[in-house]
């Protein structure tokens, strides 16, 4: 025997619907966590990444002994956390003698690891160490610009991969309408060599230029660091193909009563239905009124709801 089980509360239903797969996805959530050991550099870096993505990320603060994303069997609990928190991006920090200040950036597809890039962090400067006008500080959740500089991002496989992951990690929600007044941050990534990039977070200052386009000025606000690519893992080819599927284009409805004219431009026809003079809906049947009050009105007598006391003129 089967039984239909539905949540009893609307809040839970809405929460489940949020987690369900969607035709058009807008944004991914990020899980930030670390391994057995982290250095102070990594600790502050992870917190700062969390601050950069505060509205769509989850930060775990406990040690995780059994997470080793690159090893087989080391991803089970990571995948479970991804399912639990509904995150499909993760940033994992660990520190060891072999790989000091290690940062693993990765993505999941259907709560299974999709791809991974491991970078070492060098020359890290935190947000606090930058001095700038605090009015310029980027706001939480604003849409960032991305600037990738250097041909290595195209020619070197690892950096190409890293570029894609960094874009996915920091781009935030995919939007169609953008408020130009809200642009206030840039991520600048510069390839220094074939395995090293310089990553910096900058604020934007828009200056008048006399034209429509303002003059851009970048102010470094941090964090900034060098990333040295260590290991990386590409997704399975078949998995990649599946994950790149997009929603089938909806058939456009035929636009009725609109004609395009070469001279007059867009012309529309409007049909106005007959005025039903005989059957005008009664004002008493307004939906917004409470039932008992409405019924009282229909009767037209008896019920008189207590009027608010009005100020009376002194007589």
């Amino acid at each position, binding site marked *: 025997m089967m039984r239909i089980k539905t949540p009893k509360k609307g809040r839970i239903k809405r929460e489940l619907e949020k987690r369900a797969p969607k035709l058009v996805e807008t944004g991914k959530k990020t899980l930030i966590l670390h391994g057995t050991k982290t250095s102070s550099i990594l600790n502050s870096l992870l917190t700062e990444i969390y601050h950069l993505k505060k509205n769509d990320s989850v930060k775990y603060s406990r040690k995780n002994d059994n997470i080793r994303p690159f090893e087989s069997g080391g991803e089970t609990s990571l995948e479970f956390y991804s399912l639990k928190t509904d995150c499909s991006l993760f940033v994992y920090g660990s520190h060891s003698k072999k790989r000091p200040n290690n940062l693993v950036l990765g993505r999941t597809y259907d709560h299974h690891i999709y791809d991974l890039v491991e970078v070492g962090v060098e020359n890290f400067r935190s947000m606090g160490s930058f001095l700038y006008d605090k009015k310029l500080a980027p706001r939480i959740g604003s849409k960032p610009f991305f600037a990738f*500089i250097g041909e290595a991002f195209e020619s070197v496989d690892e950096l190409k991969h890293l570029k894609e992951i960094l*874009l996915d990690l920091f781009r935030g929600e995919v939007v169609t309408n953008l408020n*130009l007044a809200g642009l206030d941050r840039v991520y600048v990534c*510069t390839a220094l060599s074939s395995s090293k990039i310089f990553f910096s977070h900058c604020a934007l200052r828009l200056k008048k230029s006399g034209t429509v386009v303002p003059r851009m000025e970048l102010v470094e606000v941090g964090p900034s660091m060098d990333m040295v690519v260590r290991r990386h893992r590409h997704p399975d080819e078949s998995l990649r193909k599946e994950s790149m599927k997009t929603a089938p284009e909806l058939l456009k409805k035929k636009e009725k009563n609109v004609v395009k004219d070469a001279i007059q431009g867009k012309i529309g026809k409007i049909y106005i239905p007959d005025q039903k003079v005989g059957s005008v809906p009664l004002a008493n049947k307004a939906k917004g009124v409470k039932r008992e009050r409405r019924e009282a009105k229909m009767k037209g007598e008896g019920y008189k709801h207590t009027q608010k006391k009005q100020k009376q003129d002194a007589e």
Partner: protein
Amino acid sequence: MAEQQYEIDLGNLLAFNPHHQFVSPPSSREEIVKVAIDEGTKVVQAIADALFNLPSTEDPDGPIVKLPAPTTKLPREKPLPKPRPPTKWELFAKKKGIKKRKKEKLVFDEQTGTWKRRHGYDRVNDDSDIPIIEAKSTDEPGEDPFAERRKEKKSKVEKQEKNRLQNLKQAAKVGALPSHVQLAATSLPITGTQAIPKKVNKDELENVAGMAATATASGGKFDKKLPGEKPLKHEKKYRKFLPAVEGSGMGALEKQQTEKVLNKLISKNSHEILNVEKAVNMYNVKKEKKQRRQGRQSSTSSKLKTKKKDFKKTSKKGSSNKGKSK
């Protein structure tokens, strides 16, 4: 010029300068940062050139532009949702060419002369809200037409629920179950009707726990006790078996036991073993009671018919006494 040089993805506000290259690695950190920021400014300027020239609409918060779709393809987070298979009704309707039509929510009720809802509480032509049902010639006596209607309605609801479950099962097969719905297995009925799982009370639980605790070879003697666990009711074994082979001392015990049982069996029917004293006592008591009862009956015999209860009481008393006397 600048736009040609850079690869711009307006949907992600991303620009990429594939031509820049450090000819010789810069010596100092400041130099690297300076070059990066300068280059970054140029690239961002290129994005802004494209962005601010998009057609915009004015808003109190600022100009709003419509961004094109991102050109950099990034993987999805979860697989595409599968379309729900058509329900049985939808299939039927398609076959028969039945189309959905919109119906008005309010309908004029001729009985009351008011507008009423089509469905739900206080609806039009509500079958279950009729005070009088006219009798028909086909009506069978002894049947409640109201109850019949209620039963009919209930069965309809049940049928609909069954259909719904069937459709959801079909959807679950394809993996297109709505996100908030789960199909859970109920416990299997054993003999047609489903028994409600009984809640175990404390005593029963303790009994079971005790049984489990003693179910070891040593009778739970060496088991560790949980905090708060009571000591066993029977610490020792219930039965003791006598040795099968005659040894020192114990051999005579078996003989004694069997003799005891045999004696009891034999003495049940034997008159020789009669306790005369006890028998006389019993006889006397019985007789006394019989007399007492007879005396009472004779005294109350005139009121027998008027007071039945009295009679009953006495009879009860008599019977109980009988039991005692025996």
